[in-house]
């Protein structure tokens, strides 16, 4: 999959949330989603899924504050990452799993779609 499709546009909000960099890979039997979550501890990560979305909320261990930042020219503080992704196809919510290591969250989302073997006559 091309990188352009793998990265979700990162941005920020006045609500104190940053959108994390993330990558979605459509594998054969599953959708693999990773998030880059610096300054986040495992216990502060919350993941919610529906059949076709995954949402991550992650509180930073300490807030970051930028003074007179960019175009807004005032102090802005971010405390958390938040991002919802619409998945390319339905997933089996009961079989999802996640790991978190060195600030990278990896979520494995098995697809509902089942393979059917076709015999050749």
């Amino acid at each position: 999959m091309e990188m352009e499709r793998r990265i979700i546009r990162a941005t920020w909000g006045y609500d104190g949330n940053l959108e994390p960099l993330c990558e979605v890979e459509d594998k054969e039997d599953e959708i693999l989603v990773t998030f880059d979550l610096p300054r986040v501890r495992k216990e502060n990560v919350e993941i919610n899924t529906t059949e076709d979305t995954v949402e991550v909320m992650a509180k930073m261990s300490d807030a970051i504050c930028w003074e007179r930042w960019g175009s807004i020219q005032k102090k802005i503080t971010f405390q958390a990452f938040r991002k919802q992704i619409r998945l390319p196809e339905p997933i089996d919510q009961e079989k999802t799993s996640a790991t978190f290591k060195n600030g990278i969250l990896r979520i494995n989302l098995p697809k509902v779609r089942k393979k059917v073997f076709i015999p050749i006559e």
Partner: protein
Amino acid sequence: MEEGVITIVEEEGILHKHPIVIEGLPDVGLVGTIAASYIVEKMGYKEIGYVESDLFPPVMVIHEGKLENPFKIYGDEGVVVVLSEVAIPPNAVYPLAGALADWFNGIDAKLVISITGLPAENRMDIEKPEVFAVGNNEEARRVLKDKQMELMEEGFIAGHYAMMLRECYKRNLNAISLLAQCFPVYPDPGAAASTIESLEKFLKLGIDVGELMEKAEEIKLKARDLMRQTALSAPEMQKSAEQDLPIMYR
């Protein structure tokens, strides 16, 4: 500014003594950008010039209220560091590599070292990224073997550093690329640290990467938007070719 031309603007009176050039332009994992910025900071190199072109985005940077060019050249008599705070547009890759190679030739560079990354699918499970190297001619490959660098033997390389190797080859300039295993679309200070440690084999700068690792999370946060811009231009750079298997006929 001449249309479609890359211009290297150097401050007057800079003396070069057969320098080693370190290039750190935005690419996968921002490995080169992070490494080059850290080297400049730790060595206290002064800004000695900048690169301008109408092929680059019409962007300037403001640091502490001061207007700065985003594509800068730092260094001293023996070392030149080239780095950019903005992504390189794909249509600028060929003319940029040519213009820089001409300039490196003009300052009689001893060796051109491009620092970049090599996307690793299992990067999350790698504690210390390995560094691989590519040389552009026999002499460069001999140097890499002497320094016991792990050589990349087969495969495709794509992007600015690939063209840099070629343009230096055309001008009989020795050039190498150092590629650290990295996250493709996340800023990777750990990979940058590995390249700085490898760089020590070529240039005794004595840089401790401890602070780079301590500040890794802060760097990742600050580098998010440059990473996003860089990743968006990756398809046009044919970066996916680096994952392709080359045809084997030998």
